[in-house]
Structures are given as structure tokens and as C-alpha cells.
């Protein structure tokens, strides 16, 4: 049980870290730039919200299978298979939780008062300064919410990680899959404990999200 929990935790941490780096430029692009294919990009990012996880898992598996281009490149560089590996699960998790990271950041960036951005322009701040000194501090709460949601969502994954990871004990068997197997094997007390831990993690993470949201609202940050 502990092993599966540790894998879930690692997966959630790595996925969240990658998502924070990836989602901010994406959110910036979608909020402030108009370009061809913006709607398509937005739809692709939002797809995991409505797509059955097994469908996403299936396509990711096809994409990273050993005989696919990505799979072959990965094999030649790292000398290991991307499918049914921890790295493969990270790749799938990043895609699966992308909307949970991008959308809060997009909302936070959208809420930055226009006057602050114009002030940054007229005061001669360059793009890097505007991002670091104005946008990021203003969107700080959105970034925290994005991190909490990405983490919680990844901890709760089932279908995608099962398809892509294959539930290999000690490698890709995460807590949610371990719970399913415990119930199947009627290990009631262990299942009860693991379910409680997963429930607690989700509860704490969502509490964090709601607290941040309430604080932002009260302080009028970004208003």
C-alpha cells in the first residue's frame, strides 16, 4: 500500500512541476495573443475534461508504443520503453491534468486589471519584467490553485494510468489502482485505509483551493 502511495505521490509531484512550467506560457498565449488555431488549441487543452480517461490513455499508448516514432526515439535515447513506465505515466498525466493547470492560470491572468498592464507598458517594463514583476505576482493565487488542482487530479487518476502504466507493482501501480485490486481481492481493511487516505488528500487539496479563492475574493486581488 505504502509503495503504491509513494508512486502516486511522486507522479503527482513530477506532473505538477511540469504542468506549472508548461501551463503558464500556454495560459499567457491563450489570454493575451490572438493567433490562428487558438480555439483548436483551447479545445485540445480542455478535451481531458470530457474525454473518458481510457480514450485518452488509449491514444497516449498508441503514441508512445515501442513501434511508434516517439517510442522509438525514446528507446534509442534512454534505452528503455516509454510505454508501461513511470515516464510514460508522467507524459499521460501531464496531458490529462493540463486543463486543471491552464484554466485557473488563464482566469487569473484575465483578472489582472488592464490598467496595471498599461502601466507596465508606459513605465517601460520589458516582457520579462512584466511577466515577473506584474503578471506572476498578480496571478499568484491562480498558479497556486493550478498546482493544487493538478496535484489532486493526478493523485486521483485511474483510467489513464492503468492504460499507459499497466499496473506494474513497484513501478506503475499507483494508489487508485492498488485500491481497485484490494477490493477485488477482498482486502477490506487495507482498502478502507487507502480509500480514506486518498479521500483526505483530495479534501485537503480542495480546501486549499477554496481558501485561496476566498482570500483572493476578499482581498480583491486581480480585481
Amino acid at each position, binding site marked *: 500500500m505504502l509503495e503504491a502511495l509513494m508512486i502516486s505521490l511522486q507522479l503527482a509531484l513530477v506532473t505538477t512541476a511540469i504542468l506549472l512550467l508548461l501551463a503558464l506560457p500556454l495560459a499567457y498565449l491563450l489570454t493575451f495573443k490572438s493567433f490562428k488555431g487558438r480555439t483548436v488549441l483551447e479545445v485540445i487543452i480542455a478535451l481531458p475534461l470530457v474525454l473518458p480517461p481510457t480514450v485518452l490513455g488509449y491514444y497516449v499508448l498508441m503514441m508512445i508504443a515501442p513501434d511508434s516514432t516517439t517510442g522509438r526515439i525514446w528507446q534509442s535515447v534512454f534505452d528503455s520503453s516509454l510505454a508501461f513506465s513511470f515516464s510514460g505515466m508522467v507524459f499521460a498525466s501531464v496531458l490529462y491534468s493540463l486543463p486543471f493547470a491552464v484554466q485557473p492560470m488563464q482566469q487569473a491572468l484575465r483578472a489582472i*486589471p488592464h*490598467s*496595471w498592464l*498599461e*502601466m*507596465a*507598458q*508606459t*513605465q*517601460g*517594463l*520589458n516582457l520579462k*519584467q512584466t511577466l515577473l*514583476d*506584474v503578471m506572476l*505576482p*498578480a496571478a499568484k493565487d491562480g498558479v497556486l490553485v493550478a498546482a493544487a488542482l493538478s496535484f489532486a487530479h493526478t493523485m486521483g487518476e485511474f483510467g489513464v494510468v492503468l492504460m499507459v502504466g499497466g499496473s506494474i507493482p513497484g513501478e506503475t501501480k499507483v494508489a487508485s489502482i492498488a485500491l481497485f485490486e484490494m477490493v477485488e481481492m477482498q482486502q477490506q481493511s487495507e482498502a478502507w485505509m487507502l480509500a480514506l487516505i486518498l479521500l483526505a488528500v483530495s479534501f485537503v487539496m480542495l480546501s486549499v483551493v477554496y481558501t485561496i479563492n476566498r482570500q483572493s475574493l476578499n*482581498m480583491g*486581488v486581480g480585481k
Partner: protein
Amino acid sequence: MNRIQITIRRDTFDLQMDTSFADEFIIISGENGAGKTTVLRCLAGLEQPQGQIVVMGKVWLDSSAEFVLSPGRRRAGCVWTDAALLPWLNVEKNILLGVKKIDEHWLTRLAEQLEITVLMQRKPQMLSTGEAQRVALARAICRKPAALLLDEPFSAQAPAIRVRLRETLKSIQAELKIPVVMVSHDSEDANVLGQQHWRMREGKLLTEILYTGIRQEMQA
């Protein structure tokens, strides 16, 4: 000489402006919706009109050559009706936003003149509207800008401090020798500060009054 020759089409009106001005104090007045703020925004580079803007010998806009200088490169100090202070920075750091080389002496003097010395370490949330407005003025002036564009910068000030602020702005303008374009509804601003007075209506310059000659005459 500076020159502004611009046209911009809006839903409610077309703005047209064609005039020259020296490095002096210009007051813009007019009814709501006359286009006063739009003129300032065009000068600041936040709107893209057609035409030409030249300030202090530097071309800011020349739409015939498809040339637009970015707002940052214009180095115009701006104060809008929204002070736009960043709440996570204290007053001093807000003032120093975009300042590349800090001139401590200049900053101290500016803070004294704008009566914000005691506020320097406070967060914007702790300021009154009038104080925030003076901080925004300090931020606009601190960079020693190439021009000052002020949209009703005294609107939240008490009458007594307004009198002192006029003198301060007048001396700063004389010291920096830059054009200051200021939107104001207060006739006293025009009387005390205005070396040129642009009265606008429905996007057009209605009258242009030059005060310099009259004052000189009166002094003589």
C-alpha cells in the same frame, strides 16, 4: 517644437487633432466624451491613431511610414484616473518600477515635494485615494520622462494641497524642460499652470489659447 496630427475613428466620435506645442504646460479641457483622455492615450502609445506625433524632436508615430514607437520607448510619464499601484509592492518600489538607475537624491526630493515621504514603506492598500494619486505622480516623474501625460492628476486632492501640487508640477516642468499635457476640469489649473489651453468638443480641438503672451503683457 512638438507636433500632434492624429485622427482616430471611434463608435461615438471621430477624433481629429492637428496642432503644435512647445515644451510647456498644456491643459486640455472639455465635456465628458470630448476625447481628452483619448488624446493622452494616443500620445502615450496606448491607442494607435493615424497620423504623426513628434515630441522633443523624436518621432513617436508616423503612420505613413508605418512607424509606431512603443509606449516604453516614448518614455512618457503617465498618470491616469486609476493610480494602478501594485498592491504587493510598497510605495517606494511602486515608484521605482521601470527606473533603471536610481537617483536617491531625486527620489527623496520628489517624495518631499509630493508630500509622500512618510508613505514610502506603506502598501497601496493603506493609502487614501489622494495619496495613491500623488504616488502615481511620483512614479511618472521619477524616471525623468520625456513628457508628462496627466489625466486629472489632482482630482482626489484637497484644495490646500492642490495649490502646493500646482507649484510643484510647475517647478518640475521648468526643471525638466519637457512638455506636460494635463487633462483638467479645474479652471484654476488652467489659470495657474496652462501655457497653452486646448478646449475640446466631440473629438475636435475647439479653441487653442496661448497664455504666454497675455501674461507677459500683464507683467509689463
